[in-house]
């Protein structure tokens, strides 16, 4: 008989020790989700890229089993007869912008899966938590009906809450291009920084303007990371039942089709994203392809692998 876990989720529902995205919704708010994802990510097979200790003392923390004994404060132990470890604030000047695609197409969900926008919010929340924990300053931008700069890059108490609250409020609408949002972010970054774009990359011009905008960011010296987010059905990984389909951003144009019976559908989708990935690689942009069926922790791991390669 299986026992329910701390959040009412049974171990059998976890996939390889990580939580399936559809179960993250049960956790509650994005702050808890982000914390859970990152704890799982850090405590799992992956090691945090921001583990390096800084020089500035931050606080004492009660010793827990597994803490590095080198960080034990022996003098405090002598005074209090209790074990504490010293924590330091990592000294970082990195500014990062999370750019989330909130166009109408991101509202799509297949079957019982998560809508892409919700999945993108998980990713953004986990990344924000990770980067803030590492001492980076993190901002948030999105584009749906129009590009919006929600929060400038900051790292202060309560900033994570602001970011997560904004992510919670995002609704899919409009058909704005990512290029405008990236250009706005580029202008808002006062020095070189990191831009993380979470999007399905379904652009009107087949991504030409997006690639140009990413090229401009790279020319500034910014680090650019693209997390392409699709559902398995969109990616051709899961059968898509026959029907009359329309692009949520172009509802007037309908197509009666049976993608499950059309092997060319998956090929065309793969070719589109392969072309984008190649073009981004040529511009030094990190490209990570994820689907909403993949646990967010694993998606973060994919990114780490790409960065390490």
């Amino acid at each position, binding site marked *: 008989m299986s026992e329910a876990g701390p959040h009412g989720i049974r171990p059998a529902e976890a996939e390889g020790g990580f939580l399936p995205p559809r179960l993250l919704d049960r956790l509650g708010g994005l702050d808890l989700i982000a914390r859970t994802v990152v704890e799982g990510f850090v405590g799992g097979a992956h090691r945090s890229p921001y583990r390096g200790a800084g020089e500035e003392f931050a606080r004492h923390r009660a010793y827990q089993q597994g803490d590095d004994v080198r960080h034990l404060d022996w003098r405090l132990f002598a005074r209090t007869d209790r074990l504490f470890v010293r924590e330091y604030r990592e000294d970082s000047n990195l500014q990062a912008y999370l750019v989330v695609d909130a166009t109408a197409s991101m509202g799509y*969900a297949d079957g019982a899966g998560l809508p892409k926008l919700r999945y993108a919010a998980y990713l953004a929340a986990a990344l924000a938590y990770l980067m803030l924990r590492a001492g980076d300053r993190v901002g948030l931008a999105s584009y749906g009906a129009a590009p919006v700069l929600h929060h400038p890059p900051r790292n202060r108490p309560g900033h994570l809450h602001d970011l997560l609250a904004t992510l919670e409020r995002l609704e899919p609408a409009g058909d704005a291009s990512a290029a405008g949002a990236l250009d706005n972010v580029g202008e808002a970054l006062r020095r070189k920084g990191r831009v993380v774009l979470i999007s399905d990359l379904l652009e009107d011009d087949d991504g030409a303007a997006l690639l140009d905008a990413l090229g401009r960011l790279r020319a500034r010296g910014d680090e650019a990371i693209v997390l392409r987010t699709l559902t398995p059905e969109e990616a051709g990984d899961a059968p898509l039942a026959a029907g009359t389909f329309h692009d949520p951003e172009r509802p007037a144009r309908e*197509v009666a089709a049976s993608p499950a019976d059309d092997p060319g559908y998956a090929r065309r989708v793969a070719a589109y994203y392969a072309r984008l990935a190649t073009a981004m690689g040529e511009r030094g942009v990190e490209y990570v392809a994820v689907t909403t069926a993949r646990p967010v922790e694993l998606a973060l791991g994919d990114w780490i692998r790409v960065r390490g390669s």
Partner: protein
Amino acid sequence: MLELARPAYLLAGGLLALVPIALHLIARRPPRRAPLPTARFVRPDPRTAVRLRRRPSDLLLLALRCALLLLLGAAFAGPSWRPAPAGTVEVVLLDRGAGIGGAWAEAVDSARALVLGGGAAEGRAESGRRGAGRELVLFDTAAVRVPAAALDAAFFDSLAAAGPGDSPIDYAAALRGLVAAVRARPGFDSAGAVLVTRPRWEGWSPGLARLRDAAWPGAIRVVGVGGELPVQPAAVDGPVDRGVPGIAMIHADRGGEYVTAALEALGWTVERGSENFAADRAGPAPALHVVLGPVSTEVEAALAESARAGATVVLEAGVSAGAAGGSGVGGATGTLRFAGGAVLDGAVRRGPIAIPPGARLLAAWDDGAPAAVAVPEGEGCRVELATRLEEGRLPLAPAFPAALDRLARGCDDGQRRPAAAGAGGAASNGGGRPLDAGALAVLEGRGHPAAVGAADLAAAGFGSDDGRPLGRWILLAAIAVAAVETWLARRRGAGRRVGSADETVAGIGGTGR
């Protein structure tokens, strides 16, 4: 028993019902209208627009639609409910005219055998193949239907004892009695007729040949009494000569339709006279001219010449220059009585008439004033009438053809007979003289079916043959089904629209929050 007058309509309804079945087996996509951000990568597939289901969709709606078409087909198929078959009805027409004389007892025995199934040998033979229903009609110049409850042996005994009547007979009356008896008989499969008579010229009347066919579509078996029936000559095997008296010519600027119809019923071949009819016409000269309304002096002269050559010229009031008050009829009305017995009753407008020397009276008003006279003219005759032939309701009087027949005979006092009555018929008035084979053939209606089916009788104007029509009730049921189908289809359609809208909202805006 349910009967269909036009079963092809029901068949058509059944075939049409296959259409909704086929339509319900065809499923039109989109069964699913869905958003798909990667729609740009899908290729249109026409096969997805239409597909064939294994089971029909919406069985209730399909059943209603099929029922609607079948009901419409049934409604237009002329359905009727007929009571259980009542067998064959046989109407026995018994001649009780004075002319039957000593053959009366034999006639009653034959009728008894036919009705009760015993007695004479012929009667026994008849009873073996007949059904249960029998009617007895006694006729002389009128016909009386004997109630079925009274038809027993005692009735026939009393009938034989009472003897025949003292009136002449009229076969036309027998025909009218036959029709009335069949119409009065409820529910039967078929009907036949037997005439027990001593066939004789006495019963023949003008127009009987045409009346015979119009009155009864079947054959009439003639059981002759008082002697042998005339033998049909071998040569007369084809169409029976109905006895056309000759060619009659109508002279009128307008009207003349009633006179034409009556003359044709009497067997005349009717033509329309022209201004120069004598010169224009080829072939035999008309034996009768009927002049309705004023004519030119040239025509009047030609008519006088025709009369002198042997024709009969009938001039209605206001035509003849010799007639007093040649302008026509006045306001007074009366009843016309013809010497042969025909009476034109009612408000017949009358005019004065002069009686030339040598004229003989053909008809008089009810006050005794002359109404029609015949004046010999050369070999022929001129008949003058004190009224107009197509005046008011006069042409609609039952005796109109008989009156016209008397006028057409003009100066001839003899009984004109149809040519089919044989060579002796036209010249002889022999009331007791037996009918010849030709006239008997006309009366029997040889070539017609011995028993006429109820449906044929209904088609011939003998009523609805007791079938209870169901078409309007089935049509009402079809309307009710159509109303339910419409209501249900709208409800289902509205449900589908709401479902489609929900699906769209869930697909586009349903972000899980």
